[in-house]
């Protein structure tokens, strides 16, 4: 099914999403990948406030290539989400509602998704030029010293993603291949 959501987004609005739904996101989302997650975890451990609030927000696991003059961003596709598995449950428990990446998630991330009624989306890996067209604005809001790994606020318009793990814990990666699997 095709759906449109406005980010940040409430739990009520995503509760009906099902694994396999094609979703267009419009609004504000944030980027963070390996180094930013590590630093956020250290910040939490030290009892300090995070540079962005998690409640109802979506994090995109992405580190862009540099923007050419006059463009908001460079190539901007998803990175492998499993490297953030160690950090994601704590952020989900703080209210993070959605993650965009590519690839499988761990059991503990799945449990945190279900526990919090959150969602994991995949964007098409290796389509960074195409995906950059849905990003209208990009601004570094924290950890500038991390370069491509800094935290960015993105304004997106009809950013295309697919629901992989829905709030009930259904995982598209586990079911989608079955129909085309023919290995006996």
């Amino acid at each position: 099914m095709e759906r449109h959501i406005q980010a940040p987004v409430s739990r009520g609005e995503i509760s009906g999403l099902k694994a396999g739904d094609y979703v267009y996101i419009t609004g504000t989302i944030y980027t963070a990948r390996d180094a930013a997650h590590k630093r956020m975890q250290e910040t939490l451990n030290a009892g300090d406030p995070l540079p962005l609030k998690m409640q109802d927000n979506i994090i995109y696991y992405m580190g862009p290539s540099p923007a050419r003059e006059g463009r908001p961003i460079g190539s901007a596709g998803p990175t492998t989400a499993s490297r953030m598995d160690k950090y994601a449950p704590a952020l989900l428990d703080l209210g993070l509602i959605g993650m965009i990446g590519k690839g499988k998630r761990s059991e503990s991330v799945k449990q945190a998704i279900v526990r919090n009624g959150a969602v994991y989306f995949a964007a098409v890996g290796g389509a960074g030029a195409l995906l950059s067209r849905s990003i209208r604005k990009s601004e570094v809001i924290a950890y500038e010293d991390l370069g491509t790994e800094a935290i960015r606020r993105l304004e997106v318009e009809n950013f295309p993603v697919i629901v992989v793990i829905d709030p009930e814990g259904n995982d598209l990666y586990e079911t989608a291949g079955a129909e085309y699997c023919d290995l006996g």
Partner: protein
Amino acid sequence: MRMIDVADITQNIKEMCIEANHFLTEDMDHVLKRATEEERAPLGRQILCQLQENLKIAGEDMIPICQDTGMAVIFMEVGQDVHFEGGLLEEAVNEGVRQGYTEGYLRKSVVDDPILRKNTGDNTPAVIHYEMVSGDQVRITVAPKGFGSENMSRVFMLKPADGIEGVKKAILTAVKDAGPNACPPMVVGVGIGGTFEKCALMAKKALTRPVDQRSEIPYVRELEEEMLAQINRTGIGPGGLGGTTTALAVNVNTYPTHIAGLPVAVNICCHVNRHAVRVL
């Protein structure tokens, strides 16, 4: 003896880093197009169409095909009648990478130390493989390698008794474990034989062979064809979201090995299988 100024090496490598990150070779374009026509899953077809659209946008707007513009892997096949002048070859190669990645708006993805992890800021150093060959030319291959797929690559130290069936199992295991993480459809580079490091290097180099060119060794050719068919029956599909296109090609290289061993390396590459080749 032929003199080559290392400044020429720098200039060419700079251009090749930019070229490889914006344009795939023609064989990749063709195979992707054919896969789009043959894919059975509707969502799979849609994703393959997006990948073609992505390639078009990358070339037209000069925006990298993928944001992970890779670590620069460079094969230097140097004719033994060549003499380099004007500086150190290694420095000239890295200078080319530095200029290509900074002037070409490519992402800097290299850290100076695997544990301390400070970004070097210019994507250097490259990983450079030298090979001495006959003649007075230099053949340069620049192959930026993304790590979503690199992380899913494997070396298996099989026993001779495992034979070809063991090799097939190893390839399939690596591909299945890689699944959606490696941005399928993949290109699978395989090295069989040699030693621990030799098979890994062969697997990497196999990725630079055109995807429509099969091995000249009959049993290897059969292995390539059979494994491609089998991988495409796993159901993983484009983006790992189900379908009949999981790999675009399996390229296998072999080398003599020891009586006691059967090393197998599987280097997984995504559909952004980049390389630029020039002969100076």
